Structure formats: structure tokens, C-alpha cells
């Protein structure tokens, strides 16, 4: 009997984890390249949820009835506009601070996060927003009273997440752009000497992170059907936890950390206590940072003098 409940929680956890992984990619890439926590990344994801709902409403207004077509168009528009947000945040809040004090980019990032939250709240109102349930139906495993179900939506989420991750991994590891990214990550000054425009590469990394956040934003809205201007904060910290868990700077680490965090959080809220699931996630973050700061797949940080 228990195995079905565990199965159900694991399915929910994998879905959640795939989403955490997508957001974690943004943290891990930015941290890898300029060594700062992009505190506003969670809010970029929040903005993408709003953009998604707005574009879907506009598309419905223009009379596109096909769910698949509507979703794809929404996704494309959301990706483009969220990428613009990611680019602008880097341009306004981080680029002028290069070479400044150590705390400056982080404080500026917190400021940016407050700006994005309140800008959305003031423009769109403080109330919860809805996202129509476009994909319905599920597959049941088991029979009679004992079963667990996997909705089609959950399958779409996991597949989309893995496909996006696959594309990103391909871009980073096989293309010349990805090579430039990795070079900048390893040694920005040397990369610059070799003719790589590092400022441009850093912008591109923010854009790539924002694209992944946009995919996550649409998937979350589809899954839960509602969102508000505050979702970026908690989800952002959890995604960062996932990035740290998997090893910051490592792409497969981000998705692995996301899956582990999603599943353990799901199991915790299923079997122990729902109220304390956030406490559990934060506690996990602290424990990981104390005992294994380099994460599961990360390289240990060497202090240089």
C-alpha cells in the first residue's frame, strides 16, 4: 500500500525537481561565470509566469484555438521577452559594478529583486493570477483503490525540462559560443586576451538562464494554475539550494540537485509535515553547505592568495 503513496510522491517530486533544475541552471551558470548569486533570478522566473499568462490571453483573444499551437507561441514569446529581462537586469544592475567592492553586486541584486517584485505588483495588482488548465488527463498505475497517477502534464514537464537541458548542454559543450562561455568561466582575463568579448558572453549567460527560467515559469503555471508576484522568492532560494546541492557551476549538477531536492521535499511533505517543507529545504541547504560545500558534482573551491 505504502509503495503507491511513495510512488505518487516520487512522481510529484520528479516534476517539482525538474522545474527546480531548470531554474537552478540560471543560478549555476551565472555563479560559474562571474561568481555571484544572481538574486533576481527567482524574480525573472516570476516575471516569466506573468508574461506567459499575458501572452496566452492575447493569443486566445486573437482566436487561436489549438492548444498545442497556442502553447508553443506563448512559450516562444515568453522566452524572447524573459530573455530581454535577463539581459536588462545584467546590463543595469551588474555590469556597471564589475570591479567594484565584493558586496556591491549582491546588494544590487537584492535591490533588483525588490524592484522586479514591486514593479509587477504595482502593474498587475497584488491578487493571485490564474492560468487555464490546458492539458488534462492522466495515466493510472495500479488498480482499484491502490494506484498512483501520472498526469500528461507531469510527463510534458519532465520531457520539456530534459529536452531544454539537453539543448543547453549541447550549446555549452559543442558550439563555439559554448566554448567561449567555458573559456570565460575558467579565466576571464585570458579569454579576453584571446579575443573573446567577455561582457557579451556574460550577457549571453544571463539570457540563457532567463530562457530556462521562462520555460520553468510556463511549466509551473500550467501545473499549478495560479501564481502571484511573490513566487520568485521561495522558489528562487530552493532552486539555488538545488544548484548548491548538485555542485555550483555544474550543469548536470543543477538538474541532479533539482531532482534530489524535489523528491526529498515531496517525500518530506507527504510523510512528515507539510508546514515545515520549506524549513526542510532551507535546513538541507545549510547542511549541504556545511558538510559538502562543493556539492555532489562540483569541483572543490581552492582558496587562492
Amino acid at each position, binding site marked *: 500500500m505504502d509503495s503507491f503513496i511513495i510512488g505518487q510522491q516520487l512522481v510529484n517530486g520528479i516534476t517539482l525537481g525538474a522545474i527546480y533544475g531548470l531554474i537552478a541552471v540560471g543560478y549555476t551558470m551565472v555563479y560559474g561565470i562571474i561568481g555571484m548569486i544572481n538574486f533576481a533570478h527567482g524574480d525573472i522566473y516570476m516575471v516569466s509566469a*506573468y508574461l506567459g499568462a499575458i501572452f496566452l490571453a492575447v493569443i486566445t483573444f486573437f482566436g487561436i484555438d489549438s492548444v498545442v499551437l497556442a502553447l508553443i507561441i506563448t512559450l516562444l514569446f515568453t522566452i524572447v521577452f524573459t530573455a530581454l529581462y535577463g539581459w536588462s537586469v545584467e546590463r543595469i544592475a551588474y555590469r556597471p559594478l564589475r570591479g567594484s567592492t565584493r558586496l556591491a553586486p549582491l546588494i544590487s541584486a537584492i535591490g533588483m529583486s525588490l524592484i522586479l517584485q514591486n514593479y509587477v505588483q504595482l502593474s498587475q495588482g497584488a491578487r493571485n493570477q490564474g492560468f487555464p488548465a490546458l492539458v488534462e488527463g492522466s495515466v493510472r498505475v495500479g488498480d482499484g483503490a491502490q494506484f498512483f497517477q501520472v498526469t500528461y502534464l507531469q510527463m510534458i514537464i519532465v520531457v520539456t525540462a530534459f529536452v531544454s537541458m539537453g539543448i543547453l548542454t549541447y550549446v555549452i559543450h559543442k558550439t563555439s559560443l559554448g566554448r567561449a562561455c567555458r573559456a570565460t568561466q575558467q579565466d576571464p582575463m585570458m579569454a579576453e586576451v584571446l579575443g573573446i568579448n567577455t561582457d557579451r558572453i556574460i550577457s549571453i549567460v544571463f539570457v540563457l538562464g532567463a530562457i530556462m527560467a521562462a520555460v520553468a515559469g510556463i511549466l509551473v503555471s500550467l501545473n499549478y494554475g495560479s501564481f502571484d508576484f511573490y513566487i520568485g522568492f521561495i522558489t528562487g532560494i530552493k532552486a539555488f539550494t538545488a544548484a548548491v546541492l548538485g555542485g555550483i557551476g555544474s550543469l548536470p549538477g543543477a538538474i541532479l540537485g533539482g531532482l534530489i531536492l524535489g523528491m526529498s521535499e515531496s517525500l518530506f511533505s507527504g510523510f512528515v509535515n507539510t508546514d515545515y517543507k520549506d524549513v526542510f529545504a532551507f535546513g538541507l541547504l545549510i547542511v549541504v*553547505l556545511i558538510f559538502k560545500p562543493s556539492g555532489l558534482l562540483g569541483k572543490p573551491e581552492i582558496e587562492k592568495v
Partner: protein
Amino acid sequence: MEKIHKPLDFILAFKGAFVASIIALLLFGPIMGLVLSGYDYQAELQRPLIAAVVVFVGRFLFSLLFQFAQHEPRLQWMLPRKTASVWVEGEQVESKQSVRLFSAMTAITVLTLTGQFWLSVAGGVVLYLLLSRLGKRKHQVMVALVVILGLLMPFFATKFWLTVLIAALIYVLLGLGLNIVVGFAGLLDLGFVAFYAVGAYGYGLGHEYLGLSFWAALPLGALMAACFGAILGFPVLRMHGDYLAIVTLGFGEIIRLVLNNWTEFTHGPNGVSAIPPPTLFGLEFSRIPKQGGTPFHEFFGISYDSSFRYIFIYLILFIIVSLMIAVVTRLRNMPIGRAWEALREDEIACRSLGINHVTVKLSAFSMGAMVGGLAGVFFAAYQGFINPSSFTFFESALILAIVVLGGLGSTVGVIIAAFILTILPETLRYLATELPKAIDSMSDYLPSFLHNTLSTLSDGLGDIGSYRVLIFGVCMVLMMIWRPRGLLPIQRRAYHLDKPGDAK
């Protein structure tokens, strides 16, 4: 040498402004222009257009201003500055100008609260001139004046301004506490509100379960917060920079979530109510004694006034804040303070020189937490009611904004920033209620278009409360670009073994 004056490049400014406004239009377009309602939307396309025009004009003017300022020595202060200034030991602690200006401004602010605007301006000018005449003892005179003014303040202020001042002083205390951790020791703490909560709940719950009085809770709450600081300090010893920030943030959220969810003990979101205000040797400041003592007004045979309570809280708070400022200023010159600053500048070099980073970091965390706990006890006593929603991450960010705006590590800067960030919104709110009346009373004398413009402006001022957080965020980003070391940056010490003139 002849100075080269480059002509202003209008084309460049125009190009930049054009690109910025196009991007602004794309960014603001969907979110500001299309407001979601249900699964549908309402078009409000004028809003992104206005925003884009504002961006265009703003970018254009700033571009011209900066081009101009770069060649104009008197406008150099407008340009972003990143480097720290150096303070040579034995020289003036702070520049004379800023000290005089600061005290004059303080006098004006403080006296304005008594309601006599022109008197306060005159007082400020007199103080400024007085200070420019005084010689070496200027610093002491100024401190004495501020203390006397601060102590006399509550007897003249209205109750509204008294409550605003109490809130401002609580933030000064919080700023001082966080300044120890972030400013002195350079450990970015994003969960400082946790210690504030520990202090507040220490008093609230301590009163409920153990019957603690304010005077018992004050040291106990501070001690408890210091213990929490040390508890947090231990695991984060090995971390630095961003990792530390995120762990402290997690810690702050854990404290809030526990307070919110442990309903049997903390009453969850309902919070703790009926927390008594402080008493003076058992004399209460309420009309009818609730704690079984004699009320203050009966003891002295004077008529009851509800503002007695606030005056008393203000006075205790003022004394504690003054003490804390004295302590913090001295700590900075003591070995422990120097160790904090050394650790902030270079941890590895510091450890190589034999400084025990464990004690240094832990002392910074627990000292800061202790001050935060004190502020929490005052908050609980002043509000009489606390619940977890007062201790969100936004509060931490606000305290951090105070410390950053003031200048990391600068005590005077932190005090000024705390006052600005708490009094400014209240002043604007006050003006928003008073201005329309004043404008209406003048409607007979003013031309109608001027009258309309003024009323629109004062109406806009009324909404400033909802833009508060947005403005904080913008300030934080702009300050980091313009002055990453704050408005009144600390001056780094430098020791010169021999002055250039002494050489034989």
C-alpha cells in the same frame, strides 16, 4: 596647461536614449500595458508609453549631465566613485564640512517636529555657524548638543512624530547591529531579522509563559539573540561571501517559518498580544494599572496623558541607542574591532598573522545579534503586539539598505540612513494629507492651471507609500553604482611612519 573643453555630444545622448526607450517599451509593454483579469486582459497601453518617454528623457538628460560633469571640477561629486578614501591616523576624523552639515540638518529635523519651521531653520543655521567657530572641542560639543536635543525632543513632539521617532530609533539600533556584522566584519548577513524576531518573541513569550517584565526581558532577550548569533556563527565559519549570505537568509526564513507554524507555542500567524510596555520602578504608564502597580500619573499627582508611555519608551530607547553608539565607536578602536576589519579586508592574510578567525567571526555575529535582540525587545514593548509577518525577508533587506546607504562600517552614516528611510516615508504621508488642504485654501489666489498641477502632484504624493519598496530597490541599485561605499564611507586607516616634511 590649457583645459580642453569637449563640446557636448547630443547625437550620442540621443542614440543612447532612443535605444533605452525602445528596450523600455519592450520590457514594460506586456507587464504594464496588459493587465491580467481572470484569463483575460485589459489593455492600458498608455502606461508603458509614459514609462518609455520618462526613460527617454531621463537617459538623455543624464547622458548630457555626465558628459558635462566629467570636464567640470565642481561637478566631480556627481560621478560614480569606487575607491575608498584613506584616513591618516592622527588627522581629523571626519571632514569638517560634513560634521557641520550633519549637525545643522539634525537640528532642523528635530526642531521641525516641534512644529516651528522657521525657528528650526534658524536654529540649524546658528548651530552651523557656531560649529564653524569652535576649535578642537567641536566634536564633543556637537555630541553633547545632539544628546541634549534628543533628550528634550519628546516633550515637544506630537504623539504622531513621537511614534515615528521611536520606530526610527529602533531602526538605528538594528542598523548599528547589522553594521557590526556587515560593515565591520564584512560578513553579509541576509537573515538579520531573525535576531530581531528572537528579541521580540523573547519578550512576548517570556511575558506570557514566565511573566517576565520589560527590564528582565531586555538583558535576557539580548543574551538569547546573542546565543542565536553564535549558533548561526558556528556552521558558517568556513563560508564567505555569497554562500554566507544565502545561509543566513535561509536561517532567517527558518526562524520565521517556525514562529509561523509552531502554533501551540507561538500562536502562529495570530502572534502574541498584550505585551506590556516598560514600567518605571514599578510605576505604570497606563490609566488603569494592569500589572498591579500604581500608575505613574497617580503617584506624581498629575493628570493622565496617553503620550507618557511613548515619551518613556523613547527616553529609554534614546539612552540605549546612545550607549550602543558609544560602545560601537570604541569597539572599532579596540583589538577586536581592528581584527574584524582586518578579517574583512583579507581573511587569509589575517589568519596567517595569527588572528583566530573563529573567535573574531563569532564575536561579530553575537555582538550584532545582541543589538538586534535589544531592538526586538523594544519593538515588542512599543507595539504591544507581534506576529511573524513583521519579520520577513523584506525587513532584513531594509536593514541592509540602511547599512549600505549609510556607508558600510560608518556609524554616523547608518544613523542618518535609518532616520532618512523611516522618517521620509512618514513625512511624505503626512504631507500627502496636509498639502491638499493647503492647496485648496489657496485656490482663490492661484491661477487654475497651477492649482490643478499642484493638486495632481499632491495626489501623486499620496501614492508614495505603495512605491516605497520600489524606491528602496532603486536606491539600493543606484547607490551600488554611484557610491558602492555609501553616502558617508568609512575612511580606511593608514599609518605614516614619517611625515614627508620631517625628513632631514
